[in-house]
């Protein structure tokens, strides 16, 4: 089995990333769960047959529904492969009578909402347009590790003379490739952006014509910009002269593309931070043109979603029926414990690892232990799977056909079934089919197709009707660009906002979220307890994992050194720590231990440890992270926690 690049796909003409390559091992791994498991009284798992497992689950779900109602079940689902077949679970639980659901999202909704409020929708130019930029600002993003396909386009731009600027408190592997690296303190990006906006306006480095035609709220914004370069230096740590230099590049060296990451919006002020950074693209007229843009996310290939992100994350008690959405993703544990009428009694988890990845691990563990029945659909013995009463083996991406879009690439792609599932692995669609039968539920083929990949493909064929260029046969030949795609986003200068213009002043922001209608900056608010701890705890993603996935595979372990807690030399010396020794990171809510790496890649005052490392590998950063929401969009403010460190050997 080989995974090879397809040069006909303009977004990803080169090879796959290391995670993509490692699917070869992931599919065939001897550690993969391929038979259902049930937890016995002794706490150990035993294998049972898929029929026994489904009988048992059917009985339990039926009984729980009868006794406490279907809303006593929490259906927790992640994005998985983001394919259309994800909808089948929705159909099942809807027919079941609805469940309790989460709202919000752990990843990126503050930024999505910031872009939507300002520009009306969330999209950007096609990835290959990036090489037409004269300046690229990679702001809080690390594509070298988390979007490696973008590196080719950045490199091509650089080879044509483009200036590459990275803004990040960490010297990332991406920063190694840049011309300039600005290192503001975490959570202060908004102040930097607002100071830059003021310099741009004061020095006439803005596009008046573009603003006059397309922007609402410029005058209000101009009057509100009060952060001077000197104040910005105090807040961010970037010297005044460098802030002015950066403004000059932004204002004069277009076209400018900004590549914002999701890390800088995982703060209490995340939404306003993204709105502030987006100002720079708008004021300089870098929207709707080749080589320019604000590439937060490109949802143009999500043509089959009735409600697009971020709106789909927000609870709407009428439209959500029969589901009820009362639990915040960011505050999963405490919200689960608070839920009443009925209380939560059971959880069904698929495509997710909430025990490890949700903020405030202690509260999540407590909430889970209060439940009477836990079903987890998984491929490996993750920390969440290990907590289950029954584990159902999950399909791998090669084992069922599906249709997928992307939030970066503009293609719609068919993902064919290429191998037979091992053991008794069953795709979710079939699990739900058999459960519906056992529960005597009335479901149509349209809702849940009969088992067999032919039936899934038939289901997909029906599902994608409506766009003539998209048929299964077309997709089988090659990826297809999304119908209606704007290669240059907003080249028509039509914005789907209430005013039809770019809204720097947004009534909706005020009405919906209670924030200022203008972009503004508020420092991170720390509790009294928090302030006792001197260091900021950042938990970024790394190139070898997608959150908690892939790190268990041999090929990943072999090609990546063991994960280290990284600190600056300054903080190491003041605590007499030795490179490579074991240290303890702790704060008022938890602690963890792992080895330390002393490195100039980290600013003084920071402790950096990737998220997604399993408990048994010394990971579990969420033990130190409190459950807080972002200012808008119901995201999780992962990066606002403080810690202290000490040596343990």
């Amino acid at each position, binding site marked *: 089995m080989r995974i090879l690049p397809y040069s006909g796909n303009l977004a990803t003409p080169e090879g796959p990333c290391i995670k993509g390559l490692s699917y070869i091992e992931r599919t065939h791994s001897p550690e993969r769960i391929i038979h259902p498991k049930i937890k016995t009284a002794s706490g150990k798992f035993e294998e049972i047959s898929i029929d026994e497992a489904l009988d048992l689950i059917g009985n339990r779900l039926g009984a729980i529904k009868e006794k406490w109602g279907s809303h006593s079940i929490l259906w927790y689902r992640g994005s998985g492969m983001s394919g259309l077949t994800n909808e089948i679970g929705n159909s099942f639980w809807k027919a079941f009578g609805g469940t309790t659901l989460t709202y919000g999202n752990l990843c990126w909704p503050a930024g999505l909402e910031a872009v939507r409020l300002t520009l009306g929708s969330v999209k950007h130019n096609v990835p290959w347009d990036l090489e037409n930029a004269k300046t690229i600002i990679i702001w809080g993003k690390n594509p070298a590790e988390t979007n490696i*396909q973008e590196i*080719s386009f950045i490199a091509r731009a650089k080879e044509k003379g483009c200036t590459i600027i990275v803004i990040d408190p960490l010297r990332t592997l991406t920063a190694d490739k840049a011309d300039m690296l600005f290192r503001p303190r975490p959570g202060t990006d908004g102040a930097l952006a607002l100071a830059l906006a003021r310099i741009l306006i004061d020095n006439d480095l803005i596009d008046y014509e573009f603003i006059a035609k397309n922007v609402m709220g410029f005058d209000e914004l101009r009057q509100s910009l009060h952060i001077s370069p000197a104040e910005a230096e105090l807040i961010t740590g970037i010297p005044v002269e460098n802030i002015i230099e950066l403004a000059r590049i932004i204002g004069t060296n277009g076209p400018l593309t900004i590549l914002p990451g999701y890390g800088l919006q995982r703060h209490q002020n995340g939404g306003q931070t993204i709105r502030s950074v987006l100002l720079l693209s708008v004021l300089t007229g870098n929207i709707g043109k080749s080589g320019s843009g604000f590439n937060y996310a490109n949802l143009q290939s999500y043509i089959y979603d009735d409600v697009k992100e971020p709106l789909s994350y927000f609870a709407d008690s009428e439209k959500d029926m029969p589901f009820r959405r009362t639990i915040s993703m960011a505050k999963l544990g405490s919200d689960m414990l608070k839920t009443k009428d009925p209380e939560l009694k059971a959880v069904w988890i698929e495509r997710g690892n909430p025990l490890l990845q949700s903020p405030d691990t202690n509260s999540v563990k407590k909430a889970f232990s209060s439940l009477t029945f836990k079903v987890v659909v998984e491929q490996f013995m993750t920390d969440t799977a290990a907590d289950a009463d029954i584990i159902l083996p999950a399909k791998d991406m090669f084992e069922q056909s599906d249709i997928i879009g992307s939030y970066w690439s503009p293609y719609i792609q068919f993902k064919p079934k290429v191998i037979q599932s091992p053991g008794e692995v069953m795709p979710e669609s079939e699990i739900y089919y058999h459960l519906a039968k056992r529960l005597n539920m009335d479901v149509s083929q349209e809702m849940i197709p009969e088992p067999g990949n032919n039936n899934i493909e038939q289901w997909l064929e029906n599902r994608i009707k409506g766009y003539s260029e998209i048929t299964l046969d077309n997709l089988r030949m090659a990826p297809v660009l999304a119908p209606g795609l704007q290669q240059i986003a907003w080249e028509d200068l039509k914005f789907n906002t209430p005013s039809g213009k770019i809204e720097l002043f947004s009534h909706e922001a005020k009405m919906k979220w209670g924030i200022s209608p203008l972009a503004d900056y508020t420092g991170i608010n720390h509790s009294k307890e928090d302030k006792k701890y001197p260091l900021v705890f950042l938990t970024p993603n790394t190139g070898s994992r997608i959150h908690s996935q892939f790190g268990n595979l041999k090929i990943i372990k072999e*090609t990546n050194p063991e994960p280290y807690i990284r600190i600056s030399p300054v903080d190491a010396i003041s605590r007499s720590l030795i490179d490579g020794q074991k240290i303890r990171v702790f704060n008022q809510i938890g602690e963890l231990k792992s080895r330390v790496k002393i490195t*100039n890649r980290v600013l003084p005052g920071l402790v950096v440890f990737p998220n997604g490392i399993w408990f048994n590998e010394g990971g579990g950063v969420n033990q130190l992270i409190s459950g807080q929401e972002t200012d808008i969009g119901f995201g999780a403010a992962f990066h606002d926690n403080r810690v202290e460190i000490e040596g343990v050997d």
Partner: protein
Amino acid sequence: MRNGFIFNHTRCVNCNACSAACILENGWTVHPRNIFTYNSEAENVLPVINLSLACNHCESAVCMNGCPASAFYRESVTGAVIIDENKCIGCRYCQWNCPYDAPKFDSGKRTISKCHLCYSGLIEGRQPACSTACPTGALTFGQLSDTDFGSVYSWFPDKKLNPAIEFTSNKYYTPLVVIPKEIPRPADVKQNKKGKNISGELSLIIFSFLATISVATIISSFIGGVFPDRSIFISVLVIAGIVSFFHLGRILRSWRSVINLRNSPLSREIAAFIVYAGVSSVTVILRIPVLLIASSIIGLIFLLLIDNVYIYTDRKKTVILHSGQTFISALIIVSFISGIVLPFVFMALIKLVSIFYRLLVNKLNNSDITLRFLRTVFLVVPGMSLILHNSNPDIFIIIIFLIGELIDRILFYIDFNPLNINTLIDEQLNLDRNEKKRD
């Protein structure tokens, strides 16, 4: 035109996809391809430079020439240098000879594995797995034009081997400006400093030291006219033989170790040992005085051939004129035991110069300095006693003196540092670091 790897460091972000693809395609249990990084922790405003490297399939393949078992061959269509794992004896000599860290010892198979250029696919028109997988276009495979190694690769070793690799990145490269200006990494960051670990070389120390003792004994016998004790003499040879035999990965194939007499200094050394062991055993067992001179000459040639094994691979000249070489060691032992003062003084002076020279040029840690001090004492004190008494020294003094020589041999392995990309990167970083501090 020659084919080879073409590498653009400005596109390489150290993602390791090349290394993973190599393993997944070929099922290795070792890592034939690795990314070497200069300044991986981004110190002191210095650039970070990545280099993805497997075997460069050199025109002058030192791994192949030096291999005592002739286990390497050049594949005729692709020019790939390939190791036949069924011929490899696991002596690991190629790991010393290759400056690119390409041959990897597979501790399961107990033989060397290395990049074979995915040659069977290449012949069918498929590119190697590593360059196919590279997601950024940093690593490609194709026709080499000009092998320009460029200034960012000042640490790239031994271009004379004519490696099949080309770098294409320099014109795009600009050093990173970091804002706010970086605080240079303080010198007092505590690091886990480990000296060079020579436990892997233990069998070689024993073998070469016993060989030195044996040859010195034969020559002393020739000078003094007294044959050594049969059983002790034979035991020394047998132990030396067994030790070197068992240090091979594949003992049953040890007969292959002498089949590359034409090119491999290691083959010659092993052959010389066999001849010397045979002739000297006959001499000592049958006590044939005329054969003592033959044994002495063969013994000295044998020792020269031992030294040559290291000189051949020591292209960085780390142990040139080292006081721990076997030839000079045997001669000084002979002169000491036989009480011949003038030659002894002459050779002791050479040794002292060599020791002090290394104290000056090498960066040494504390345990090294202790060893070198002991070594000097164990040479000077017995030497003074020899000069003052001007007679054959007693057995206690001889043992002290021999311990000194053993320490010298151990120091030889500590100082022996074959040309290797890992150490070159460290050395370059140290140099640049110090230069930055002076700025």
